[in-house]
């Protein structure tokens, strides 16, 4: 008689204990997330809300007072030929940035997948550009591209590909954008490589063995097994490249200064906001950049990301 009662009580105590434990562990998880939440609220959400509001205001300390401007800032932005040029340029930056980063990241990831002597050292070297600030990279690459002393000119001339030193950045739009974009690609490819490499290492070896037994060639293995299996890593790498290319600034500022040939939306935002002091238009451009970044990132995820289970 007492046995079932005891058993029932014990069962209820165990359940209660498990529930308390679960509550405690969940509370701990929330507690640990709380500081991050504060940062997100304070440094991302709050400024985004303010930017959204101010994008519809005339805010220019040189021509006060501030007042509601409706879509005035947006109209001004789209009627400014220099800003329109920066939209086009940024499209090229995205095309080059995302394309090259994904291709190079995947290639390097595949090359580094195989174990070889010194692989750890190579990995450490590969990640180095990621650690450098954009401005430093811009300065390094301005020496490489320099038309008087530059390494690129020197190499191309010694290979007889150039008859005389060339000016690479400044005169031709696409060439200037491609070369500026390369600097950023050089910076972000290491992270893409690591993301791809991490995905590659999650693929079970049995899949490759089975493919080999079935007589699949190298390209078929890549196309039918490797690429589909690393889609989550590729998606993150592509989004990372997309976000950074859409917001490219440091490299443009160092290599191109204020010229419109290779200007980007972010460089125009900087000039309009901090040189022209037209904060309202600066906020509007920032808001546009944010909306486009979020929309294209979601689109890219939807296009590339697939859940992969083994």
């Amino acid at each position, binding site marked *: 008689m007492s046995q079932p009662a005891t058993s029932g009580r014990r069962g209820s105590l165990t359940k209660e204990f498990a529930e308390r434990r679960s509550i405690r562990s969940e509370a701990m998880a929330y507690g640990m997330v709380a500081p991050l939440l504060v940062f997100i609220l304070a440094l991302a959400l709050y400024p985004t809300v303010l930017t959204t509001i101010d994008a519809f205001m005339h805010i220019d300390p040189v021509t006060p007072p501030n007042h509601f401007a409706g879509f005035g800032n947006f109209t001004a932005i789209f009627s400014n030929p220099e800003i329109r040029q920066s939209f086009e340029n940024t499209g090229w930056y995205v095309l080059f940035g995302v394309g090259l980063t994904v291709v190079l990241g995947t290639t390097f990831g595949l090359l580094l997948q195989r174990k070889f002597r010194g692989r750890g050292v190579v990995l450490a070297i590969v990640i180095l550009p990621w650690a450098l600030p954009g401005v430093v990279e811009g300065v390094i690459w301005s020496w490489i591209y320099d038309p*008087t002393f530059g390494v690129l000119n020197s190499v191309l001339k010694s290979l007889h590909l150039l008859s005389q030193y060339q000016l690479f950045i*400044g*005169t031709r739009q696409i060439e200037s954008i491609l070369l500026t974009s390369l600097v950023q690609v050089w910076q972000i490819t290491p992270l893409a490589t690591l993301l791809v490499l991490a995905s590659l290492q999650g693929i079970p070896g049995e899949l490759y063995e089975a493919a080999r037994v079935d007589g699949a060639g190298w390209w078929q293995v890549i196309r039918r097994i490797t690429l589909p299996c690393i889609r989550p890593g590729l998606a993150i790498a592509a989004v990372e490249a997309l976000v950074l290319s859409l917001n490219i600034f440091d490299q443009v500022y160092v290599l191109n200064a*204020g010229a*419109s040939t290779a200007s980007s939306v972010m460089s125009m935002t900087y000039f309009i906001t*901090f*040189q022209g002091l037209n904060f309202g238009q600066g906020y509007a451009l920032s808001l546009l950049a944010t909306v486009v970044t979020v929309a294209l990132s979601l689109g890219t995820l939807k296009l590339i990301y697939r859940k992969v289970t083994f």
Partner: protein
Amino acid sequence: MSNKWMHSAVFKVTAMAAAVSLVLFGSAVAASSATHHGNSKSVTINVAIAYPAPPKAMLAKFTHETGIKVNWSYLQWDDLQTKIAAAAEANTYFADVTDVDWSKVGEYYVTKWFLPLNKYFSMSSLKSQYPQLSSFVRNGTLVGMPMDGSLLVTTINEKDFHKAGITSMPTTFSKYAKDLQTLKAKGIVAHPLDIPFAAAEGLSTYWYELTAAMGGQVLSPSYKPLFTSKSSAGYKAMTWMVNAYKTGLVAKANLGYEDYQGFETEMAHGLAASVFSDYSGDVGTVYDVASQSSVVGDIDYSPTPGISGIAPNLGNPDGIGIPRSAEHVQAAVEFIKWMEEPANQAAFAGANGPKNVISTFPLPSNRGGLSLLAKSGKVPGATALVNLVEKHGRAVFPAGAPPWYPNFSNAVYTNLHGAAAGTESVASAISAIASVVRSLSS
């Protein structure tokens, strides 16, 4: 039950986050409101300047004399302007003393981001002491104090000129242009002239200086464009600059060079023989510094050649002022007074030798400092520079920089760069700049 708890936990965490945010915000507000406008003793002031700090011993002496400690932050000029604008617009504390460039005076007068200094400095006595004071005064308001006496000057590699058989340095623009052609034709220097064609401020000021040398100005006192006619000095100056680039007087590389890059990579290494619009002070701080120059002793300041004789040298001075959000105004005033002492100004420019120098500091802002510098004999070309300041110094805009100057300069350097790059003609560049001026001044 679990879901209910989850909701409650989310609520609690959000509330906690909000509470922490409020506490942080509250602390920041409390800290920022704890300002001290009266007492200047035993305080630390933050000074954000586009010059490296003077030697510690000098600042320590100031602290010993006044009790004011100085926390000196050296920021690049562009970064500094961004920070000033961001802090002022956000109405937050940034520094007690910071840069007031001549080109920003009109803007700061309108935005009221800086405290007027009239009640701390006597305008009547300043006028006789400061050759470039007018650049810092707008409608009687002293927006900032001139911190240096920078001028746009012409530098010439005399050794190269002599090699080309040119014995007398040019005093007219036509002779200057001919001498450059001679240098190129004789192969002394492949690209004898340095013009920084990168789309940046240095390109704009180069055009202003060349326009002045050609006998004109870019804007009228009421800020109307004076450069639209083909016969105007501004139009001729731009045409000459672009031709100089296209005909190889200027190296191709210059399309990407800002002013300082041209001075350091070309002029300091003998790759150019002249800069028409150089910084006063570059001979002593760049060209005669053996560690960064291969032309030590070869370059000298030369009176700027104009259409019919010596041309004006336009002022390019940096000033200092007190932002409205400054926490220690009285201490800031004392610091500015100390910075302006003639002996200190001369020392910053090298009158006492290298020990008290502020790196890249061009010239003292006041006549007392200029006189001490010339007397010291320790800075190359100082006497020539003092002479240029007194005889040929002139403000870029006689009526002061317009409040929209940064937009104007942006239009100048973007279009002038485009004309050199071949993406537009000189005529369209001139037209685009004029259009910007008209819309800004209307």
